[in-house]
């Protein structure tokens, strides 16, 4: 159970860290985050089904494509509401989410699509445990990417500029950071990270138009636990969610269905006990 929960948390971390970036750096709470993940999953499915491209090999291409999409969306829409009331920001991204979700329904029907990847069912046996190979690969890759993102934020000039903007927009602008370009970059990156997580989902599960909402909510649960905008704690918060879900699935009767409600319980608990997040 511990292994199961931990493995799952890798994907959660990758999905949530993009959202944390958007919330932390730009201050935009993107309700369409899960929908970009959904687009990534479909991209992975189509690339595999049409051209036989392995979803993992498609990551660079998919990430670039979604980065471009995110950038375009920032320029045409997000940029205009940066100074608008929070309600307008939420409504805009929520509208985008609804739009994308139903676009997917219209284009690809509501049925889930499963890519028949040859090594999907293969498993590793470690002593008494049997673990799916794709799960291990995805966990390693997702955690690797998340850690790489931390390194970029911590070490590089761009990363430092992003953190500066996150802390104080005006101050960063005064010392010469081009805030608008950083926002563009952060939003594109956020969308690309969601898409990458989506591609990885193709490897383990299937793509469906409605999958986005659940991931948006789980990503929210994670960033609420981490503390809004606290990118560093996302990994730990993902672990909490992954383990809690695995716990419910294993120990609660008929737990498979109940685990879909775990994120809400966590959100509520955090809001009750420590609204600033568990890891601050």
């Amino acid at each position, binding site marked *: 159970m511990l292994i199961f929960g931990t493995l799952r948390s890798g994907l959660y971390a990758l999905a949530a860290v993009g959202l944390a970036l958007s*919330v*932390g*750096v*730009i*201050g935009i*709470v993107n309700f369409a985050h899960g929908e970009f993940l959904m687009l990534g999953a479909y991209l992975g499915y189509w690339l595999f089904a049409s051209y036989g491209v392995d979803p993992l090999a498609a990551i660079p291409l998919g990430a670039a494509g979604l980065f471009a999409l995110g950038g375009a969306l920032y320029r045409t*829409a997000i940029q*205009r*509401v*940066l*100074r*608008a*009331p*929070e*309600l*307008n920001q*939420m*409504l*805009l991204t*929520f*509208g*985008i*989410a*609804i*739009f994308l*979700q*139903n*676009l*997917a329904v*219209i284009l690809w*029907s*509501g049925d889930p699509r499963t890519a028949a990847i040859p090594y999907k069912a293969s498993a590793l046996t470690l002593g008494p445990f049997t673990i799916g190979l794709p799960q291990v690969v995805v966990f390693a890759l997702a955690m690797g990417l998340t850690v790489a993102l931390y390194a970029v934020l911590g070490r590089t000039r761009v990363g430092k500029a992003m*953190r500066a*903007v*996150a*802390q*104080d*927009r005006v101050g960063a602008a005064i010392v010469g950071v081009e805030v608008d370009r950083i926002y563009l970059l952060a939003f594109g990156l956020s969308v690309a990270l969601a898409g990458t997580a989506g591609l990885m989902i193709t490897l383990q599960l299937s793509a469906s138009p409605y999958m986005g*909402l659940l991931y948006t*909510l789980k990503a*929210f*649960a994670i960033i*609420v636990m981490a*503390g*809004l*905008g*606290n990118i*560093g704690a996302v990994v730990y918060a993902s672990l909490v969610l992954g383990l809690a879900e695995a716990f419910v699935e294993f120990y609660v009767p*008929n737990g498979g*269905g*109940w685990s*879909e*409600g775990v994120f*809400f319980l966590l*959100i*509520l608990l955090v*809001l009750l006990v420590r*609204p*600033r*997040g568990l890891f601050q």
Partner: protein
Amino acid sequence: MTASRALSLSRPGRLAGRLGVPLLLAAALAWPFLTVRTQPYLLQLSLNILIFAVLAVSWDLLARTGQLSLAHAAFYGLGAYTSALLATRLHVPIPLAMLAGGGLAVVCAVGLGVLTLRLRGIYFAIATLAFTETLRVVAKQVRFFGAATGLVVPPLFPASLVAQYLVILAVLLATLLVSWSVNRSRWSFAFTAIRTNEAVAAVMGVDVVRFKVAAFALSAFFAGLTGAYYAHVFLFINPFEVFSLAVSVGALVAPIFGGLYTTAGPLLGAVVLRAGEEALRATIRSGYLIIYGGILAVVVLYMPRGLLGVLTGLRLRRPPAVAVTAAPPVGGEGP
């Protein structure tokens, strides 16, 4: 008193209101008797439109305090399930059961509101969305609630479409009356102050959380009542339908499309959208919600005052432009 009038409508609007409201009311009352024999389908559709209108008008009540609620489907579903269970298992008279549905929605709204409305708006939006999804999980999982198959519900005024129509019309009128009187009362000042700048409102002596919770409870009551009505008229409920995101989305798109923070706007938006949706359904089979998504984005970006603003050009109150000083665009509280 003059100030509150200026708030609600400008002069030509008031004139139109004086003539228009009685006329509209008469038409709405005559409608079922005109259509029941010749066009029962139209009457059936009208029930749908009125349900949608109640949801829209009641959603707007809370929006006036600047909060985005995605829990309207939760209250709608709570009302539907409460009333259905009370009527089938305990044989409570249906009107009473429906009121209990609205009552339970209020209780839940107060609980959720007290917990989350004191925090930043975004926490509230997330919590409401998660609350709805969780209620659906519960309804889907628990055998007592009918699980995934749903519940069969006893009818309200069986075999009388006209009576059913009049009931929901009465509910809508009550909602409109509440919405209208809230906008004319001193509450509207508090709501506007909270929406514009919460910190300033608090300093000026507005009990911010209490007003928000009150608005949330009021809004939830009508959503719960309407959900109960839906159950007893359509006679079957399941978790995927009544707790559907589409309910919450519809409830918020209509006011935004029609014109936020008004009484007429949400009503107008609901009628136009639901009628348009019906016309579109012939061409787009699934995924018609795409229109709602598009409308949301376009309205937020290009027509902040909605249809009402565009149509009449009345000088309604704009949503507050910016409050740069109090709410910096960089929202993170973290490092």
